Every structure is written in C-alpha cells, then in structure tokens.
C-alpha cells in the first residue's frame, strides 16, 4: 500500500528557513493530490495551514507557503519563530474519495 512520506524531524534556527516535504512511497505528488498542510501543537487539534497546494487560509502568517517541487509537496517556513515549534502534517488525496496523512514532521526551533 502506498504511504505518504515526511521527514520525521527538522531543526531550524530562529529566523531561518525550513522546507518540509511530503511525498509518496510509490508515485508522484501533483496538484491533483490537493496537498493540505496542518500544524499541531501539543494537546491541541490540528490547524489548517495550507490547502490545495499553496493557498493560505486567512489568519495564517505569510511566512508559511506551499508548493510542489520534484514530485513532492513542500511546506516552506521562512523566518521561523519560536511558536512554529510544532508538528506538521501533510494530507494527500489518493483517489476514489480516499485521503491519507503523512507521518508528521516535528520541527524544533533553536
């Protein structure tokens, strides 16, 4: 079965830029995967950061951006701040009404 892959963890310095990727164990991510990105702090429900590859909901800071690069969805955080230290999940549409989350990427800002 195809799984959605993410880096387990990343570290970034305050003010730095980090890119988190979201791929498929078999196949390529495209706009037809409708990548969504979510941010989750401990003990909280997820928060939608990006939908449909690169659209930010109102209220999400513009330091968060989404794209597709080399067959993967990418979440870029430019100018990371301490409050960005969370777990980030992507979700991809797999077809036939089925969605799948990636395993999550734990971001440390230090």
């Amino acid at each position, binding site marked *: 079965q195809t799984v959605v892959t993410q880096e387990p963890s990343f570290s970034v310095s305050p003010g730095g830029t980090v890119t988190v990727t979201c791929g498929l164990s078999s196949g390529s991510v495209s706009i037809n995967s409708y990548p969504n990105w979510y941010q*989750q702090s401990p003990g909280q429900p997820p928060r939608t950061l990006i939908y449909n590859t690169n659209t930010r909901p109102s209220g999400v800071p513009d330091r968060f951006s989404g794209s597709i690069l080399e067959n993967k969805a990418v979440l870029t955080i430019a100018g990371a701040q301490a409050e960005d230290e969370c777990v980030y999940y992507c979700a991809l549409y797999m077809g036939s009404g*089925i969605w799948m*989350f990636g395993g*999550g990427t734990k971001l440390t800002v230090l």
Partner: protein
Amino acid sequence: QVHLEQSGSEVKKPGASVKISCKGSGYIFNGYSLNWVRQAPGQGLEWMGRIDTNTGNPTYAQAFTGRFVFSSDTSVNTAFLEINSLQPDDTAVYYCARDRCKGATGCHAFYWGQGTVVNVS
C-alpha cells in the same frame, strides 16, 4: 463562525462499544462532509474516512472497515462515530473535521473539533 463540538472523554472496557458525537454549528450542516481522524498517544494523524452529511453515505479508509461506523443526524446537526468491539489499541483522540468546501474533489478537513479521548482498558 464554523464550530464543531465533540462529546466528552470515554473510558471503556475491551469488547465494549462507544459512540462519540460531533455537533456542527455556524453553517448549513448537511452542506459539507465531515471527516474522522484518529490520533493514538504520541502518534500521528490517521484519516479514518468521512461521511457525506447530505446523503449519509460513508467512505472508510482501508484500516477502518468493519468495526467503525459513521452516521449523521441532520435534525440535530450531528455526526457520530461508533466503534464496536473496542480493543486497547483503539485508545486515541478522535477528531472530527469539516471539509473546507462542498462536493469538489479537493475539499478536505479544514475546521476541526476539539477531539474526544477514548481510553480502552
């Protein structure tokens, strides 16, 4: 504004059943599908499936067929997740999440409930 209110924590014995609820407000309930997402302790998010609240038609992820039942009652703007034959590894936080938009392929979980803790022991 859109709000999803989930029912409270549950403690169950193995083999029992549990039914948790997700009440939507601030929007037309049967206009948007609701997703169910599981998060085991210390683990990631798992998409369990969704229910079309207009038709009542459920879609289940492969790992959640058989013991898991999605339903909805539009008269009370509420969706339900029932888990039968509970096992200890069903211990998790269960979230409901409303689709961002209606009917289109790319619509997915956007507005989230606060989560319901189910403890099976």
